[in-house]
């Protein structure tokens, strides 16, 4: 790629740049999942929501000529799928984990079906902010090309952390997630709050998907997502359900995903597929080290089925 001039020193810079580029979908999906899980449900289907968001965002950007309308529609499509998950899970004795698996299949199926006509055409994509122009090095310039959505994600993480801690709404969501009985005793509708949180989480995951198709890699095809939606679910556990920690975890995951391409650019091609598996191995390793068979995880919402 762009690291030839710097040789091996280019690898960490390319990883950093890649981390910033690749982390945005992780950030949005994990914030959405964080909101859903804080309310006491897990949505494993965000992988399907992500792909659906990528497809609808790209299609609408192509049809309207405005990438930002695409981002909005991607969010709305994700919200619709999140709402579906939330409503089905509100039925008695329906497992949220199983519905998530169903949503994963439904979301990717719908996206592949509806997205077929948009594989070829070129849609307008999101603009980048060139924050690296002070440097003469093209590597650093490339690494600091930042998308507005990345900054929006940071702002959102801060806002969510504040809202969970200091607002009435945040307290309601946390209470519903920690003890449904307490929430019911206080007169709050548990299923409705959870459904709303899942729908809002779906919106964020849809926006994260639109980043994939509208900025980086910046096109729509059926192999666009490779499990980012699922890894984001594990990422939230790693981040202990704290929005700000989600941001750092997303950067870490983005960096892990950038190792393969960065090494390839300096001529290390031998274990290409193995390096591409780095994010999954990292996710699994983190889950192994942070989980425990005996106690529930620190910071886990009390009603969450996945940690019990």
């Amino acid at each position, binding site marked *: 790629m762009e690291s030839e001039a710097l040789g091996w020193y280019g690898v960490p810079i390319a990883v950093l740049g890649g981390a910033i580029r690749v982390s945005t979908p992780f950030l949005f999906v994990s914030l959405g999942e964080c909101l859903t899980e804080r309310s006491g449900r897990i949505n*494993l289907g965000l992988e399907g929501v992500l792909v659906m968001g990528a497809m609808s965002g790209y299609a609408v950007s192509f049809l309207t000529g405005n990438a930002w309308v695409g981002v909005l529609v991607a969010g709305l499509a994700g919200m619709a799928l999140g709402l*579906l998950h939330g409503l*089905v899970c509100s*039925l*008695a*004795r*329906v*497992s949220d*984990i*199983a*519905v998530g*698996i*169903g*949503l994963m*299949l*439904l*979301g*990717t*199926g*719908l996206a*592949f*079906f509806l997205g*077929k006509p948009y594989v070829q055409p070129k849609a307008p994509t999101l603009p980048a902010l060139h924050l690296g122009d002070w440097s003469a090095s093209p590597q650093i310039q490339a690494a600091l090309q930042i998308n507005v959505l990345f900054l929006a994600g940071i702002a959102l993480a801060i806002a969510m952390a504040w809202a969970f801690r200091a607002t009435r709404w945040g307290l309601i969501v946390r209470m519903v997630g920690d003890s449904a009985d307490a929430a019911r005793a206080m007169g709050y509708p548990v299923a409705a709050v959870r459904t709303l949180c899942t729908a809002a989480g779906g919106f964020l995951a849809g926006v994260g998907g639109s980043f994939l198709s509208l900025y980086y890699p910046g096109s729509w095809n059926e192999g666009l997502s*490779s*499990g980012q939606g*699922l*890894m984001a*679910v*594990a990422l939230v*556990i790693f981040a202990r359900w704290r929005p700000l920690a989600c941001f750092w975890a997303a950067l870490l995951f983005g960096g892990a995903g950038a190792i393969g391409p960065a090494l390839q650019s300096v001529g290390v091609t*031998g*274990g*290409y*597929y*193995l390096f*591409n*598996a780095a994010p*999954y*191995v990292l*996710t*699994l390793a983190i*889950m*192994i080290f942070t*989980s*425990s*068979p*005996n106690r529930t995880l620190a910071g886990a919402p009390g009603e969450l089925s*996945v*940690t019990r």
Partner: protein
Amino acid sequence: MEAVAALPANAGTRAPLASDAVRRAAEGLLIPLGALAVSMLLFGVFVLVLGKDPIAVYQLIWKGAFSTSFAWQNTLQRAAPLILTALCVAIPARAGLIVIGAEGALVLGGLAAAVSGHLLSGHAPLAVQLAMALAAMTTGAAWIALAGGLRHFRGVNETIGSLLLTYIAIALFNHFVEGPLRDPASLNKPSTMPIDEASMVGNLPGLDVHWGLVFGVVFCLACHVLVRHTVAGFALRVVGGNVRAARLAGLPVGALILGSCAVGGAAAGLAGMVEVAAVHGSANASLIAGYGYAGILVAFIARHNPLAIVPVAILVGGINASGSILQRRLDLPDATVLVLQGIAFMAILAAETLYGRARLFQPRGA
């Protein structure tokens, strides 16, 4: 005293027990069938909104799946791996685990079968086939048991863990097929060295369907016996029903969880062997065909009942088989069947809420 008094009442309910079983069976049959009918209706609306004729779509699915003997053979051919991957979901589910890593066990099992088949080329075909099946089943069993072990010993959620393991398995598979194990002669489509023509798993006599179907059906029967009619199967169901009760009763929970995962993984690995040894002749990217994911759907529709898996796999295999005719005749994308499957999956899961609601299905005198 009360217990003694209750005895005659219990004895008196012997006759209605048979009808209770019928009621429960009817519930288990009618609710999934109803959910499938609803999902077909919803899919029809979806198709109608897109400006296609739903009746024509269903006629084509019927035509492509079940109308002729050719269609039936195509359907059965596709059902064979689905039966085996569905077992990979259904057996751990009996221990209360939602494992969705069948795709990974399938591709690694296929790789192991291809490698062992090539290494043993020249030996007696039956011995080679046996070795391939053993290698594939061992690999698949170890892979899914890994997910079960992470769950039991480290508390790692088995659903997320098994899906991550699938991505890792596919990366390993690609690494070996395109790297160290690549047949230099496979130019356009990287593959492993082919296995002997003589060692290929053939077709059933008089049919264009390979033996993999029989492997699947036999595996299902064996699992049915294991789960319903053995002590280990009973213990497994206790673990699935209530882990704490199982621990208090002194059952070996860890061994049961790992064992059920290993059995399921062996089934998925065998599916990989069947695909390699009966269809492709070597391990290549064609193995990554989504059989593992469709198997999840099959297992859930069958409610993790090994015997129900066979007809459901034939149904889903038929829907898959009709994908190409939908594409040719109505110009629908090949993902059409994925949409139908996704809708069916959601409907089946939503229908879980109906169990035990209708009075008609409840045992009388209880």
